[in-house]
């Protein structure tokens, strides 16, 4: 065992002197995770919300109340100012949406507040701008706005003073309005008068639990697992992907190191030493396994430390990392067995593993792929690597659920080992 460790540590020492290899194994995956993480919206915040430019032309209590309610919505992120820091105007808000900087804009017109609480006068319409092609977002925005406006009306009936004032105001308007059918006028006056009296006598505490304060007849059922199994930030997606690229760097580096031992003649020294062939292979594999494990653990640690990546299942994460490192070590062996020269190894790696990484979600998240490609991605170790890591960090998978991806990774690794040892043993000197 000492000889295997000696050989593995020699390889690690050599690796620390190879700046190019260090870049591909450690730095490139980190840059990848950061670049695509920030490109996809960064570390949470307004990511996943509908981003709405707002222009308050009214500047009334009513308009401010409406916008305050909208700001409290989990679905919306409101922006009063452009990126340059200047308050949005109708034109600049429209441009921000047209350029795709924000999802939609909302203009609260002048005079909105005067009629916002009115039972009688038609209110000034809010102006909502959104790309017609974004039907799903437009529908969602409609719903959120209607809910907010209804909620404003609802507030009146939980505030008796305000409701009485509005009822009295409406009663006066009805009396003054010409052209209303006398029968209708009588009915309206009766209703508004009774409402004014009722609200005048009502106690606020009593109304808080009345049907006026009730939400719509909709029972909200929190589905916690679904809620928890969404990435909270883009980094929870990009860091698992970056692990794949780090391990890809390990594969190439260590496969080349095995081939170099042969082409540079140092394999003769190893073969002439008391090391058995199995010990040489084991030493090489151990070095690759250790570096793969380290780079994966380091990336996940940095993601956790810098961007708050969750670790829902620490044991699962350790299992995922070990399985992935084993898998990629086996693949490294196979690659070294197939390639007889350094160029052949790097060429084969690019030709085989790059497409596998691509279709496995190494570049584009699996969720964004069409269904058929998600099916095809099952052949890629990258997919199982990412599924295992995501399962441990934010999907909150149990150990039982981790067995499938980790088992697939182990099986691929074992197959790679078998192939690699078989081919390497044919070209010993």
């Amino acid at each position: 065992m000492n000889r295997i460790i000696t050989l593995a540590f020699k390889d690690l020492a050599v690796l620390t002197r190879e700046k190019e290899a260090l870049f591909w194994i450690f730095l490139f995956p980190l840059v990848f995770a950061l670049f695509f993480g920030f490109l996809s919206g960064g570390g949470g915040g307004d990511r996943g919300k509908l981003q709405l430019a707002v222009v308050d032309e009214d500047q009334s209590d009513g308009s401010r109340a409406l916008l305050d309610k909208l700001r409290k919505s989990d679905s919306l992120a409101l922006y009063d100012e452009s990126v340059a820091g200047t308050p949005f105007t109708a034109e600049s808000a429209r441009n921000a949406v047209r350029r795709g900087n924000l999802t939609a804009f909302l203009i609260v017109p002048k005079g909105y507040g005067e009629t916002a609480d009115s039972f009688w006068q038609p209110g000034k319409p809010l102006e909502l701008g959104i790309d017609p092609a974004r039907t799903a977002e437009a529908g969602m925005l409609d719903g959120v706005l209607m809910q907010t406006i209804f909620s404003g009306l609802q507030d009146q009936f939980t505030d008796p003073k305000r409701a009485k004032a509005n009822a009295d105001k409406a009663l006066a308007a009805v009396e003054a309005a010409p052209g209303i059918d006398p029968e209708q006028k009588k009915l309206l006056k009766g209703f508004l008068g009774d409402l004014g009296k009722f609200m005048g006598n009502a106690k606020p505490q009593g109304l808080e639990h009345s049907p006026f304060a009730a939400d719509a007849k909709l029972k909200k059922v929190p589905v916690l697992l679904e809620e928890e199994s969404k990435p909270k930030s883009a980094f929870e997606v990009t860091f698992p992907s970056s692990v794949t690229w780090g391990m890809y760097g390990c594969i190439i580096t260590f496969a080349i190191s095995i081939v170099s031992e042969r082409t540079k003649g140092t394999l003769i020294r190893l073969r002439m030493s008391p090391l058995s062939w199995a010990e040489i292979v084991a030493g090489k594999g151990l070095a690759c396994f250790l570096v793969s494990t380290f780079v994966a653990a380091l990336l996940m640690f940095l993601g956790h430390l810098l961007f708050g990546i969750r670790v829902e299942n620490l044991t699962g994460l350790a299992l995922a990392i070990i399985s992935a490192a084993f898998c990629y070590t086996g693949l490294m062996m196979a690659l070294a067995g197939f390639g007889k020269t350094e160029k052949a190894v790097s060429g084969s790696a690019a030709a085989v593993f790059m497409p596998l990484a691509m279709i496995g979600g190494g570049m584009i998240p699996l969720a964004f792929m069409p269904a058929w490609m998600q099916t095809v991605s099952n052949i890629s170790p990258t997919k199982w690597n990412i599924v295992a890591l995501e399962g441990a960090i934010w999907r909150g998978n149990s150990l039982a659920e981790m067995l499938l991806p980790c088992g697939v990774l182990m099986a691929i690794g074992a197959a790679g080992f078998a192939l690699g040892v078989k081919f390497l043993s044919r070209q010993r000197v």
Partner: protein
Amino acid sequence: MIQATELHKSFGQLHAVQGLSLEIRRGETFGLLGANGAGKSTTINLLAGLLQPDSGQVVIDGSTDPTRREVRRQIGIAPQSLALYEELSAEENVRFLGKLYGLSGSKLKERVEYALTLAGLVDRRKDPVAQFSGGMKRRLNLAAALVHEPKVLFLDEPTVGVDPQSRNRLFDNIRELASQGMTILYTTHYMEEAERLCDRVAIMEQGKILALDRVDGLIDQYGGLAVVEAELKNGHLDAAQQRSSLAAAVGKDDFLLEANKLRLESKEPLEDVARLAQAGIGLKTLRLERPDLETVFLNLTGRRLRDE
């Protein structure tokens, strides 16, 4: 110490070694002299157990399996290619190999010091091998083969690409190792190296040993006659008188004489020169050309070693 019997090794259509037999005695420096592609490296790989012969047998120190660990511990090898890790320092290279052979602690330290001192690299021990000259790398290549104190040393073209200073240092190292009783197998295509270093030399061509003996034995058997070339002092004799006096002096007349220039092939060149002097034949210039391994190689193969 090393015995090879009827070794055969082919790579596809190429018969690299064909029926090679030799015996290397304990403490002997044995040279394998041959042109590039003669089969020298394949022979070393067969003797070291790095290649399996198609047929034939190798016995090293009584063991018929050179791949056994206890046999391998007795063998050091300096391959023709510089088998070093260029990213590591000289000391790290030697230390790593020592550890592979199970050395540790003070023994490892002692052997690392020995190897680096032998290679003359103590002052550069911490420098990466990539920064070394060709000669320094060759010396380290030799030192790396010695760290585990082997009894047998295989040196495969150890002076390729080496400057004269480093070459002389390597020669000194090899002589020192030989004087300590190490058994050395030395392959080269430089005849002067074989002449200077080896107790016995085998001449290889196309996977076969053409001749095997001590250097002087090979020259005696295959080197042919020495050549004496001289320019005679211009005396009062005419050409015919000159020729007859020369023939009388050396006791034969199968020499060339043209315009006072003599070319004489002889088994005893020094004695013949003495005879000329005794006969009063004055010489303006004299050149003696003794046969060497180059001549032996030429006579055995029909081509010069340096033609490669």
